[in-house]
């Protein structure tokens, strides 16, 4: 790409100096951030803190997707919004805050929900996708599109006092390639093959959420997205190179956070769980997968049906 070896402007130097002097970052890492495009899907409890640090770090283009508007019940945890912006589209509200923090990035609002029809066109324009959504149907859709478009995916979720985070599809490898060296990274479906039963899908609105819990996960997502770009972890290593960086992304770690209101930080507050790598039989990325972008646009698979949402439209009380 152009600009990867250009000089930093005085403005950029002043603004980013404190992270550029961190060992491993440097001017090279900063220029990679400036020349990158990160898509954040969801401008709520995860998306707000994730976007703050991604924008602050100087990522060149920050895309934000969310169809919701700011509600007062969001504000204890969605710290990029404001009372004066109640009723505004969340992406627009968050961009007001982000632009105030750092006017240098280009902010691209998508003030509608990601769906099977629009997902590929949007995702295709970015280098890394950060999943800050709140429902399994969209999570499976995002992962499928990231597999097909070969985008790394930083996925997190949180409800009540628990949080989870995992980096998927990084570096991306072609659909169907399983026996790669180094090991091909898994997708969301490799780790979470089937959605939970429809009745168990509690959202933060229904089940509640502690602000700092979802906040921790959102900030952690920013940290992973920034490191992927700054260290080019999404660029597959040159196979002729004998250097094999142990990025442990081919067999990634699921980080789980258990916040306990009744006791202090302890040995089980954070746990790093070793997940399997890419699965041969994965519906999306495995051998012989028939998943295509055209199919997704045409309604196959049906994500709502897969996640059982159709069955919950029966709202009659027994």
């Amino acid at each position: 790409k152009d600009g990867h070896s250009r000089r930093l402007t005085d403005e950029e130097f002043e603004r980013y100096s404190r992270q550029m002097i961190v060992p491993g970052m440097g001017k090279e890492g900063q220029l990679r951030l400036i020349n990158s495009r990160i898509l954040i899907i969801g401008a709520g409890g995860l998306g707000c803190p994730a976007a703050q640090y991604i924008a602050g770090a100087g990522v060149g283009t920050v895309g934000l997707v969310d169809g919701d508007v700011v509600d007062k019940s969001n504000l204890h945890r969605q710290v990029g919004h404001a009372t004066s912006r109640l009723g505004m589209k969340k992406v627009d509200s968050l961009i007001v805050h982000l632009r105030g923090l750092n006017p240098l990035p280009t902010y691209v609002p998508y003030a509608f929900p990601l769906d099977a029809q629009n997902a590929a066109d949007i995702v295709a324009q970015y280098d890394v996708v950060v999943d800050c959504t709140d429902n399994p149907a969209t999570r499976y859709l995002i992962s499928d599109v990231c597999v097909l478009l070969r985008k790394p995916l930083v996925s997190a979720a949180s409800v009540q006092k628990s949080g989870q985070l995992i980096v998927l599809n990084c570096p991306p490898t072609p659909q169907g390639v399983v026996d790669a060296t180094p090991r091909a990274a898994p997708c969301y479906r490799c780790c979470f093959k089937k959605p939970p039963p429809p009745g168990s899908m509690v959202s933060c609105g229904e089940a509640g959420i502690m602000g700092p819990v979802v906040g921790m996960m959102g900030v952690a997502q920013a940290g992973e997205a920034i490191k992927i770009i700054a260290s080019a972890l999404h660029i597959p290593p040159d196979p002729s190179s004998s250097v094999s960086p142990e990025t442990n992304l081919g067999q990634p770690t699921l980080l789980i956070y258990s916040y306990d209101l009744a006791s202090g930080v302890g040995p089980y507050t954070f746990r790093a769980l070793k997940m399997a790598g890419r699965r041969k039989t994965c519906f999306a990325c495995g051998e012989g997968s028939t998943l295509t972008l055209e199919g997704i646009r045409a309604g196959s698979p049906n994500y709502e049906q897969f996640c059982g949402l159709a069955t919950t439209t029966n709202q009659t009380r027994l």
Partner: protein
Amino acid sequence: MSAAATQAPPAVPAVQTIPITVDFSGGLEMLFSNQRRHSLDVPAADDEGNKSNIGFLVRHLCSTALKDPRTDLFVLDHHMYVSSLSLSLSLTHTLSELPSHLGSEIHVSPLDARPMMPRRLRLVMLIRSGSVSSSRPGILVLINDADWELEGEEAYELQPGDNILFVSTLHGG
């Protein structure tokens, strides 16, 4: 005290057990008195003499829960017992919709009960069915912090000191 009384009774053959810890996370711990970690001694072999594996552990958790109402291992919140729940219960029921025959054993404070109900029932299903399969949705099983598929899933034979973690998949954001 007679001399006979001080004699030790003939030793009952000790049941060989395996000490393990079982953890619940991602909200599942709320089903177990908010206790994340449970130290257990499980039989080293099943009734047929096969070494105890993960499949056996789940059956063991199940039968322990149903046979021993004193332990709070299978108490849901404070007052709700697995043994009182009907397997036929629809997963989409909310508290106010619970069949009345579950009756007096259910005493859950309304505030936190409603949203958690589906997950309670989900775990009840897990335990009552006596088996978890790799396709069981919504719950990950970790053996010593590794996805159980790396370790052989249900066929993994328990070792002393093992840690088995059940964690529910989250979707909120």
